[in-house]
């Protein structure tokens, strides 16, 4: 990665923060105000927080200095970094997911995984069996919905573009439903997206099985515009970490963004994202 993004002399008089929900959050609220209040209190300058569902816009806004701090998913961060628009300062922590039950456990992690699921009664039991089968993917820009699973396929010498019949769906819930409907033979979803569908289809865990987990995918970043002064980078980092530890603050970030806390991070962590992006064919 480039290093030009480090060190700057921008001192904010007010802070614009934008949040893009992470794909693997199971409860979400489109709320900005509570975080706004917390940050204002910690930093002592006016803060505006907004939510967006499209990370292109947030990266572009950071590139043109209209957003100072962005909650970016890993792929979006890598691209923002490449444009010289952002550098990572923190990563969100969540509870890990139990591989067996699909329910959250109490280990705090800064990564998540993606997985292949098939119907319970399917005779597909491992990645190799997927050759020639119909698989529900997310769009090729998605880490958990395409890039990591595609890499897993390629590890087993299966070309994700030609050796399987990929169907692009929008939303991990739709991938699960497509599988339940029998429209596809397998679906790739983040761990464990079946929870989203559980309300509509309570027996989803009984009717499906996981055949493979991918490598770890780094969690969402908190990135900051590249010309932010060192002092303020520190200040902001500390503010977020404090919020995560503070009782009231923790309740809020957990409630709204299902974050458990924040840990400092660095660009190097995301080299794996760059590797995967290079390896995996998208067209």
């Amino acid at each position: 990665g480039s290093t030009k993004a480090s060190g700057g002399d921008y001192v904010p008089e007010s802070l614009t923060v934008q949040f893009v929900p992470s794909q693997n959050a199971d409860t979400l609220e489109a709320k900005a105000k509570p975080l706004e209040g917390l940050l204002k209190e910690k930093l002592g300058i006016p803060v505006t927080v907004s939510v967006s569902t499209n990370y292109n816009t947030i990266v572009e806004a950071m590139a043109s200095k209209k957003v100072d701090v962005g909650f970016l998913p890993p792929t979006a961060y890598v691209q923002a970094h490449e444009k010289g628009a952002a550098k990572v300062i923190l990563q969100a922590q969540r509870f890990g997911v139990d591989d067996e039950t699909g329910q959250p456990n109490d280990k705090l992690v800064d990564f998540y995984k993606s997985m292949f699921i098939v119907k319970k009664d399917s005779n597909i039991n491992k990645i190799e069996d997927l050759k020639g089968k119909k698989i529900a993917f997310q769009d090729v820009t998605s880490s958990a919905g395409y890039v990591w699973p595609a890499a897993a396929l390629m590890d087993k010498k299966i070309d994700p573009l030609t050796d399987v019949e990929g169907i692009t769906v929008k939303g991990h819930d739709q991938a699960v439903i497509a599988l339940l409907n029998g429209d596809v033979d397998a679906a790739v979803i983040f761990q464990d997206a079946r929870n989203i569908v559980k309300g509509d289809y309570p027996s989803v865990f009984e009717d499906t099985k996981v055949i493979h987990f991918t490598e770890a995918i780094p969690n969402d970043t908190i990135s900051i515009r590249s010309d932010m002064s060192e002092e303020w980078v520190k200040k902001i980092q500390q503010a977020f970490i404090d919020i995560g530890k503070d009782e009231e603050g923790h309740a809020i970030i957990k409630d709204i963004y299902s974050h458990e806390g924040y840990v400092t991070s660095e660009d190097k962590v995301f080299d794996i994202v760059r590797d995967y992006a290079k390896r995996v064919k998208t067209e």
Partner: protein
Amino acid sequence: MNNAQVTYIKPRKKNNRLWVIYIALALIYIWAFSGMPITGVKETAGQISKAIFSGIFSPDWDYVYLPDGEDLLRGLLDTIAISVLGTFISAFLCIPFAFWAASNMSKGKATTNTGKFLLSLIRTFPEIVMAIMFIKAVGPGSFAGVLALGLHSIGMLGKLFSEEIESVDPGPAEALTATGANRLQILWFAVLPQVMPGFISYTLYRFEINVRSAAILGMIGAGGIGTPLIFALTSRDWERVGIILIGIIMMVSVIDLLSGYIRKKIV
């Protein structure tokens, strides 16, 4: 009266030409249908759609008003503000385009065609790309949403306005021409009074579409009711979807009633 021999000649229509068109149309439809597999209803259909509908029909009333903000009412208010301003902008900006593109207003096919082309171009430019452009310009938020809506709506309004202009009664314009009025005066005295009801009615309609485009605006963090709606939909929180839908439907119905009333007053 002596009823002279009634003879008439049925004019030969360009029937052979029409046949070519009909056959071409038939072929296009055969092609289109051939790509449409007949799929039956899924086994899971009942269960999932039942879950969706029972969710939607038991709306999350608590969301209507929350003391600390970001609830349905404030979302709708934001949405209205964005749509009002976006609609104002497009309704004014599209008028010159509309006259430019109307075949009975500009001399020569070339002028009309360039006008129509420009409108098509604006329409083809996706709202999301416009949104990105304006976010780069003014940062994320309602203002970017207003601008994206305002610019994008020019394409549709310009087209509808220009068609309205094309269907005016040429008589009054002729009368103004005969008095030696210049083009602007003809527009003002003879054309505008005729097209005004149409303009207003299309503008109100576009306003309503803009209200509903809240979803697109929501994607980019422009505020309004769109963001919570998308969040609720992607997390399959149907109770929340239900209450937001009720809110939007009520708002759209009120707008519809109002616009019907306004149109009746002016038509």
